[in-house]
Structures are given as C-alpha cells and as structure tokens.
C-alpha cells in the first residue's frame, strides 16, 4: 500500500539510469583521461570551510513534499523539512517537531506536544495550526500520501503547542504513518498558497533552500536557528549526474564529496579504492515472485512451492546486484526489529519435481512478466527460466514497459510476475495489502483465513512483543503458502569522500546532513 508512489519514484530513477547507460562509453572516456590520478587530493584545497557538493542521479520533478513522488526530491527535502516524529537509524520512531505524545486508554486519541520556539526558515513561528493545515491538506486534496491517513478521523489543534489526532481504530503504526518520511512534512500555509513551494519550499529543517536552477543544481544553506542546533557543514550544492561512471569519476577527482549514482558492478572496485569511502547498507526494499492463484495450476500450493524450490536465490541476487543484495526468504530484512528468521526453501530440484508430480503437473509452460524499465528483472528472468527448465517447466519471458506492466498486473493478466516493494517501515506495510484477502495490492489473489485474522489483529494490537509474534506467524504462513516467493533485500549504496564524517547511510535511503561535518 505504501508503494505505488514509491514505485513510481523508483521507476523514474531507473529510467534515468537506463538512458544514461547509453552514454557509458563517453563516461568511461572521460575518466580515462587521467584526471583521477592527480586530482585525488585537490578536493581538500579549501573547499572544506565552504561546504560540499553532492551528486544525485536525477533532478527533482518538484519540491512540494506532499505532491512529489520522486526520490530525488526527497534526497533534498529530507534536510529542508521536519515531520512530527521521525525514524532513527533503526527505524524506531523518535520525537522531532513533537517532543512527546500520549495515547488515550482506548487507543483512539493521540495527543502530540509540540516543541516550543520552532521557526520556519522565513522567521514565522511553527504552531499546531501548521500541523493541522499540513495533514488536512494531504487528506482533503487526496495527495500522494493520503493513504497513510486512512485510519485518521479528525485532526485538531487544542492550543498553539498541542495537536490531537483521533483515529477510527487502535493504530500502533500511526507514528510511522505520520512521520515515516518527508512526504508527510509540516509545511507553511503561506508558502503553499503563494505556489512557491514547488520551487522554493520553506520548512523548519536544518537547511534552507536558497537556489533551484533547473537542469543544473540546487543550493542549500545551513539554518542557523535550527531547533536542533545549526549544522556543521555551511552549504550543500546538489548536482544531477545520472551517469554513474561520471559521478564516480567526479567523486574520485574531488569535484563532489558524496554520490549515490553508482553502477552496482563498480562497487567491488570502489571498495578497494582508498580515495573513496563506500557504504553498502541493506535496505527495507524487497524483490519477489508472485504466481497468479486465479489461474490453474498455480492455485495449487504445491506448484507454487515447487517453483520456490526450483529457483536459486543466490544466483538471482548475484546477477541483479553483483553481490550487494542479501538473500531473504521473507520480506523484512535482518536489520529490522521486525525480522523473522525463515529458511524453508533452498535450491532443491528433486523436491520441486516431487511436488510437481504430486500436483499432477507435467510439461508446464508459463509466462513470467517483467519490466524493461527495470533491466535487472529481465536479466534475472533469464536465470529463472534456465533454472525452471531443470525441473521441466518452460518459462517464457514477457517484458513490458512499467506502465503496461502495472496495467496487466491489475487486470490479473499474468502467470508469474517479478517486482519489488520499496520504502516500507511497519510490518503492516509489508504484508497487509499484499496478502489480506481482497487487499489492494493482492494481485495474485492469495486468500488464507488464518493470515487474514493475523493481519487484522496486527493492525490493532498495541503490545510490541505480541505484535511481533503475530507478524512472525503471518509472514511464515505467507511464505509457506508461497503467496509471494521472496528473493532478496537490495542495498542502499552510497560513496563519499573520506573527509566526510558523522554521516550515516540509512536503510530507508534518507539523506541527512545535519550531523555531518568535513575535515
């Protein structure tokens, strides 16, 4: 549920990467000109006191946090805006604009106490009214993140520093819904009504946006009055370099100090390079195969399990991510507090054949739907086809552009599909809409009464330990039934200058400069 928008943003990024691939030869020529040899230490020639330049892989479509779905925008906005609460590195929700909060006994009323003296970057004080305005804007205008407020009945300002949110049912995931990322940021009404927000957003965050020159750069300057204390790096210039090889060459040459525009096949080489620090952090994204249970013979759980046994997850992860991804047979990565260990399936052709025999399936010919906008899915599909051939299944590959792909998925016109979900935090994001009977993303038509009960329970159970148990049970059942055949969690890959300190590569891909410094 969290992710049509996220997917779209990912798609934009991918498309750019694809277009850039054709320029690869030119990019390589540029870096073989010998630049990186002698300019390696030119970077610390005095830049350090003047801030840093970073390269992101594409230009933001707009800077209105409530409207954009592009990850490029959030790479910038992360530093301009604040949310009521925000996830820490372990994705636990922590106070931000709200210093503390209370929940009523019946779990239906949440009261947030705002931090006092917070100012927008133009000097206007931020009050409870701005919070109410921001959330109402998202809900009333049905903006990109409106689905996150589906349980919210009413939002009101009790006084200047107190906001009350009424929900229709106990919602243990309310905090991640209203603070999970900057798409639910607190905006300034004046900035919205004037229309400036799309190019010159004004927030309460540690950096103020001073210049957005389309096609070239975005400049941020430190906000000296930031409630958390002024950041150490005085200014940040974002450049847009979609061609990974070019970005890496610029980083090595000291022209930029940070980038996430990195071709995965270069990661190994960069890890051995002293002039660059590179971090590969497992993300909350996951990739999966799903079989259409409305079609025969995929309604038979044994056929689905046979396919889960026939594929080699390590090989798939290798060809798509060059060893930067982590194989996982469930959705939630090991680093998350919600992780459940599960390793039922492994490459086992005998077992797969036996299951197919039991199901009475012979000479199965089926189609795998992948998207040419995600070239790695086309690659992986060829590996999967080869592996399924070993157990007597003929797999045809159907490669579509992503728009058509989504269409076909929603119409149920597929045997098997291969895709990923991004940007999940709460376990409810991972499982509910994908596996609940009739769930909005349950395109595969999975239905299991027991799982439904568990997922419903998980939504309203407030005890953490109990909730974790519920989701562990649900997830295990989902994987046992092979509703999704989970494959792997990809990584967040970022490279930066060794002079940059205090910066953390986060699993939710949030780029935060507030604690970073140079030198």
């Amino acid at each position, binding site marked *: 549920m969290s992710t049509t928008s996220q997917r779209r943003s990912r798609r934009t990024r991918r498309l750019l990467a694809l277009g850039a*691939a*054709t320029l*690869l*030869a030119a990019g*390589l020529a540029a870096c073989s000109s010998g630049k990186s040899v002698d300019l390696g230490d030119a970077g610390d020639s005095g830049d350090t006191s003047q801030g840093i330049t970073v390269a992101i892989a594409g230009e933001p479509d707009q800077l209105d946090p409530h409207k954009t779905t592009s990850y490029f925008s959030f790479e910038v906005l992360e530093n301009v805006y604040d949310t009521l609460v925000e996830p820490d590195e372990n994705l636990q929700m922590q106070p931000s604009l709200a210093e503390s909060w209370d929940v009523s006994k019946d779990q239906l009323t949440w009261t947030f106490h705002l931090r006092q003296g917070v100012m927008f970057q133009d000097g206007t004080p931020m009050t409870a009214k701005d919070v109410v305005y921001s959330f109402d804007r998202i809900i009333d205008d049905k903006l990109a993140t409106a689905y996150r407020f589906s349980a919210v009945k009413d939002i009101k300002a009790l006084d200047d520093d107190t906001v009350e949110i009424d929900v229709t049912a106990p919602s243990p995931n309310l905090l991640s819904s209203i603070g999970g990322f900057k798409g639910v940021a607190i905006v300034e009404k004046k900035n919205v009504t004037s229309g400036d927000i799309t190019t010159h957003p004004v927030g309460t965050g540690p950096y103020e946006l001073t210049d957005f020159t389309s096609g070239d750069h975005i400049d941020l300057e430190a906000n000296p009055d930031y409630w958390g204390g002024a950041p150490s790096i005085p200014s940040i210039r974002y450049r847009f370099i979609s061609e990974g*090889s070019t970005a890496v060459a610029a980083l090595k040459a000291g022209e930029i100090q940070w980038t996430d525009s990195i*071709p995965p*096949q270069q990661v190994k080489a960069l890890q051995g390079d002293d002039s660059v620090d590179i971090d590969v952090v497992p993300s909350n994204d996951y990739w999966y195969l799903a079989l259409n249970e409305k079609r025969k013979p995929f309604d038979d759980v044994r056929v689905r399990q046979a396919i889960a046994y026939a594929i080699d997850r*390590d*090989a798939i992860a*290798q*060809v798509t991510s060059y060893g930067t991804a982590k194989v996982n047979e469930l959705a939630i990565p090991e680093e998350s507090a919600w992780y459940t260990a599960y390793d039922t399936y492994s490459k086992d052709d005998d077992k797969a054949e036996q299951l197919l025999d039991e199901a009475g399936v012979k000479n199965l010919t089926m189609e795998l739907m992948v998207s*040419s906008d995600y070239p790695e899915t*086309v*690659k992986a*599909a*060829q*590996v999967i*086809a*080869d*592996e399924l*051939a070993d157990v007597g299944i003929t797999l045809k*590959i*159907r*490669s579509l552009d992503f728009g058509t792909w989504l269409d076909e998925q929603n119409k149920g016109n597929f045997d098997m599909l291969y895709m990923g979900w991004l940007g999940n935090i709460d376990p409810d994001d991972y499982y509910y809409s994908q596996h609940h009977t009739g769930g909005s993303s349950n395109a595969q038509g999975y239905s299991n009464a027991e799982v439904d009960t568990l997922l419903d329970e998980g939504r309203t159970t407030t005890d953490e330990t109990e909730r974790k148990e519920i989701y562990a049970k649900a997830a295990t059942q989902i994987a046992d039934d092979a509703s999704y055949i989970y494959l792997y969690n990809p990584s967040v890959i970022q490279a930066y200058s060794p002079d940059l300190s205090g910066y953390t590569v986060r699993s939710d891909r949030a780029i935060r400069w507030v604690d970073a410094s140079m030198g």
Partner: protein
Amino acid sequence: MTDAIETRQDPADDVVPVAERGPGTLRLLLRNPVSLVGSVVLLVVVLAALVGPWIAPYGVNDTDVSRALQGPSGAHWFGTDDLGRDVFSRVLVASRVSVEVALVSVGIALVVGVGVGLVSGYLGGITDGVLMRVVDVVFAFPVLLLALAIVAVLGPGLTSAMIAIGVVYTPIFARVARASTLSVRSEPYVQASRTMGTGNTYVVWHHVLPNISGPVIVQTSLSLAFAILSEAALSFLGLGVQPPRPSWGRMLFDAQDFVGVAWWLSVFPGAAILLTTLAFNLVGDGLGQVLDPKRRTQLAAQAGGR
C-alpha cells in the same frame, strides 16, 4: 517518370536471353576476389544459421553465475556474459535470427514492392500515379523511425520486427521494379507480344519480370544487409527479438553496462553484424556488375572472350 525513360538502354544490350545467363553468372561473380570473400562469409553465416543450434558448444540459455564475465579462453572462445552464458554459442545461434529476419522481411518487401512496381510501371497512367504517390509517402519517413512506429503499434517481438522491416523496404523495391519495367515495356519484343494479343499477365510474367530481375536481385542482396542492421537496431532498442533468445543487437544492448569491464561482450556480436552486412554488400556489388549487361560483356571479355 522521365528519369526511368532516360535510363533506358540500347535494346541490343538489354535483351540478354535469360536461358544463357544461368551458368556464367556465378562463375563470373566468383572470379572477382572481393565477391568471392563476401560469398564465403555469407556461406559461413548461412551454415551457422542452419546448424548453429546443433554445433554450439554450450546451451545458449544455460546460465551459471559462477562462471560469469570470464574472458575468452579455450573453454569459452568468446568469453562468457554476465549471466555466465557462452558468448560464442550465442553469437553462433543468433545468426539464425538475423538471417531469418532478413529473409522474411526482405521477402515481404520483394513480393509487395516488385508487385506494386510491375503493375505501376506496366499499366502507367492513373494507376501508376496513385501507387507511386503512396510509395512516396512511405518512402518519406526515415527508415528506422517508421520501423519503430510500426513495432510500437504491433508490440515488440520477432514477427513485428519482420513486418516492420519488410514494410519500410517495400518502397525501394517498388521504385526499382517500376523504373526497369518502364524501360522494358517499350521494348520491341514486348510490343510484338502485345500486338499478337497476348494477355497482360502473360507478358508481365514471361517478358517483363525476367528482364528486370537483374536490378531486383542486386537490390535484394543490399537490402538483406540493411535488414540485418535494422533488426540489430530494433533488438538493441528492446523492440525486436525478446530475451532469452539470442540476437546480436540485444547482446550489444546488454553489453553496454560492461564496456569497460568485458570488451568481449560487445566486440564479438558487433563483429558478427559488421561481417555479415559487409558480406551482403560485397556480394550485392559483385552481382550488380555481373548482372548489368554492359559490365557483364566487359567482364566476360576480360575473362577470356566468353
């Protein structure tokens, strides 16, 4: 229309009895070293297309990630790709796709184009005007752009690629056939046949068609080269042959990410495209000389008074 009349040659040169052309043409062609090389390469490509799947050392779709991206070696002559597949086997087997697409699409262009050209040139008048203006419209589009548009409508795939390439090369055949037909139509033997009351179909089939075959054959050979290039271009753009089926164009596309890492991924399929199209062009040029009555007489004279 006038241009066609201008190209009309002296009847004495033009009337080469069809029966006598057969045995000498091939020998004359092969006597030219350049054409000989082209023919040999073509023969190899066609052989590869016919028996490739049986002589390939590895299965074209056998992936093995543990042997990915290995350079050329005794075990893998052309190295392996990022999925661990044998590049030599894939280049070999991909020749079938190229030849298949080239033959079918040029077949379409040949049949439709020559048909239109014959009718247009032989009947003349309004029919000629209408048909040739339609051909002009199709001809006005850049070749690849039109092919892209057609594939976009039909959906990506081998069949769409064949149809698209066939359609875009049709106008060339129509023009070549029409121009030759115009000149042959006014030849005395055609006129004589018509005076005797022979039907149009018979005249076209027995008198016109055999005598315009020279230029058409040359055009066919050249078009085969362009068709292979177009297929590679469409597959490169993801609109032609769909993976995992190997195709030279698609292999080049996949090789982009590895230009600096694994040169063998792009060099071998690229060389295959180059050699094949070059061979078709060389043979086309050779045929052009041999089938042109004037040049043929010269060649025959040089070859020892034949």
